[in-house]
């Protein structure tokens, strides 16, 4: 029994209009408007998208394994969301700037993240990892929705600078309930900020189905704020790529903010600490398996004769290499030094904290000296 209103149950067929260029069976559906955004996607590039998704899934699976083996404290899997992340991530230009949540492994991959930087945080080594200015991607954000305001502010600043840069922010369906997300839409609309809101509606916010958050399609909300939106099949990498490319182009060229709802599914647990069997029907997962983003691109590649054994072997090797690289980078991480926790609280000297650090250093020194001694 649920108090929540009569929104469509998750797992029901999505009936609203949306953009889909590749059916779950892998059949390419022509759509002249969006197809024009895919003119450069030849066989090689199609294979590239497939490889990206397979590699990212493999990284994800390997990270989950590392967690199970005690090498990571926690891991938030992207399983099932590869198309949404690779399709949108590959649409970004290098100097676009991204404000992610915590689940954007695939986007970070597209931005050229190093293996160690994918796991450093989850191993508990550091509060963030990649250099935001190398990847043009902010540190991941755990406070739900906060990053949408950061993206909007960054976009306002690019506009002040007269730059033709798009700012993109990722968040989930649950995030749409937060005040910050809605305030971000207000500011983005008021300042016509060049920001692209990218919602991965993966149907769940931990144990809560999307109907607890929203009674209408999420993409129906931004227009009321004056922000145009589109709903896309988030398990269709081509649709995600085309829609995001067009959106980024609009945003970069002064059309104001834009909003994409990518309808996808979190096939794994919320994080490795979560047990989805407590709250969701296994049939729902089975149903979504038939819409797997990787399988459908494989089917399409096959139908196009782009899926021979050589290619498959090559992809397998790339995935194996990534997994091995990730594992080596993870277990090779050295622990932080004793006093590192005091670094970077401030960028200019702070007398009270300096004193605490000195006292603690003295404590540690004395403690080490005494080790094996009295206590």
């Amino acid at each position, binding site marked *: 029994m*649920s108090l929540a209103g009569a929104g469509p149950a998750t797992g029901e067929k999505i009936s609203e209009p949306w953009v889909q260029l590749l059916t779950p069976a892998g059949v390419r559906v022509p759509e002249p408007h969006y197809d024009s955004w895919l003119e450069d996607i030849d066989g090689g590039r199609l294979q590239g998208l497939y490889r990206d998704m397979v590699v990212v899934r493999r990284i994800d699976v390997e990270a989950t394994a590392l967690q199970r083996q005690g090498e990571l404290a926690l891991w938030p899997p992207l399983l099932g969301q590869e198309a949404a992340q690779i399709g949108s991530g590959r649409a970004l230009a290098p100097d676009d700037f991204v404000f992610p949540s915590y689940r954007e492994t695939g986007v970070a991959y597209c931005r050229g993240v190093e293996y160690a930087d994918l796991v450093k945080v989850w191993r*508990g080594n550091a509060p963030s990892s990649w250099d935001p200015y190398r990847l043009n991607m902010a540190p991941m954000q*755990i406070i739900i929705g906060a990053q949408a305001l950061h993206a909007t502010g960054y976009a306002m600043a690019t506009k002040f600078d007269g730059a033709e840069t798009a700012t993109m922010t990722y968040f989930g369906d649950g995030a749409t309930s*937060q005040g910050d997300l809605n305030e971000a839409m207000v500011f983005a609309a008021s300042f016509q900020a060049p920001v692209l809101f990218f919602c991965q509606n993966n149907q769940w916010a*931990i144990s809560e189905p999307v109907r607890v958050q929203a009674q209408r399609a999420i993409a129906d909300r931004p227009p009321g704020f004056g922000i145009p939106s589109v709903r896309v099949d988030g398990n269709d990498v081509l649709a995600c790529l085309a829609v995001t490319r067009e959106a980024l182009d609009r945003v970069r060229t002064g059309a104001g903010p834009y909003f994409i709802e990518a309808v996808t599914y979190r096939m794994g647990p919320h994080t490795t*600490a979560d047990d989805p069997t*407590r709250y969701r029907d296994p049939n729902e997962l089975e149903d979504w398996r038939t819409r797997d983003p990787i399988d459908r691109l494989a089917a399409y590649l096959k139908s196009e004769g782009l899926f021979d054994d050589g290619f498959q072997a090559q992809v397998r090797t790339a995935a194996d290499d990534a997994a091995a690289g990730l594992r080596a980078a993870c277990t090779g991480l050295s622990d932080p030094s004793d006093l*590192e*926790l005091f670094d970077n609280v401030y960028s200019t000297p702070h007398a009270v904290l300096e004193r605490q650090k000195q006292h603690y250093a003295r*404590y540690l020194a004395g403690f080490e000296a005494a080790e094996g001694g009295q206590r």
Partner: protein
Amino acid sequence: MTTMTFGQAINAGLRKALDRDPKVLLIGEDIGTLGGVFRITDGLQKDFGAHRVVDSPLAESGILGTAVGMCFRGYRPVCEIQFDGFVYPAFDQIVSQVAKLHYRSRGRVKMPITVRVPFGGGFGGAEHHSESPEAYFLHTAGLRAVTPSNPQDAFLMVQQAIACDDPVMFFEPKRRYHLKGEVDLEADLSAAAPLDQARIERPGSDATLVAYGPLVPTALAAADAAADEGISLEVIDLRSLSPLDFGTVADSVRRTGRLVITHEASQTGGLGAELAAGITERCFYYLEHAPVRVTGFDIPYPSARMEQHHVPDLDRILDGVDRVLDRPNSLSGLED
């Protein structure tokens, strides 16, 4: 007496409260079907229904703000904040509404809200999952704040908090959720120790060691270790953070002449500051040494592989005890 974990004791207390008063309801993220990310509300939605155990949208200000409205209608909402670091989006509603509405309405509207906040670190959590925000709330007039340190207290205090007509911030030391203890499930609530009273957990004579929530077991272990060295520590579990039970602590300090306070929260402006200042005011001529604070540092809660430096442990507490007793300690020889 039943043996149960800290978490199960809170669950049992919530169940009692739901059973006792139809106006009690729970609201929060993932507390229904899932039973909460820590399973503290496990089974309650099944037994009491979705009107009594409400899965809310993902918005903390919304949780507290709607709870305020429910109070206008005579309800006693128990709000769950999933982790300490997620209480801040609700800060405005807590500080400007929950804390002030009884005052604003000149006593006509009661705000018997209980805000359950799993708090504290020491378990390898991610950013925002290990914070100790209690000082913000004890500085806020109109709120009460408590934290149990053992299953029996957890069981009783959560019921007392819900029964209290004032808003109560209920801090749950999450790394102790699996701590086991004996709980008297038939204990009479009206006979229980008042919610605003500290408790002497272990009598002693050389110094008073004050802790609360997650550090009470650590303080007791420190007292054991100190005893081995012939030092007798009186350990006080504050239980109530707002109001602070100065009476119990002052009585103890008048006997021991020395005070050590420990908490995980940052030092500056933390609870230890208030306790030290308030006890110094009350016991100045009894004090043999300035009160000593053994606390987290003035840093954002650090990553898992650094937290052992931040969270006070037995050794750091004992170093503080050495300091207050003028025994050789890490700061010996330092002026200032």
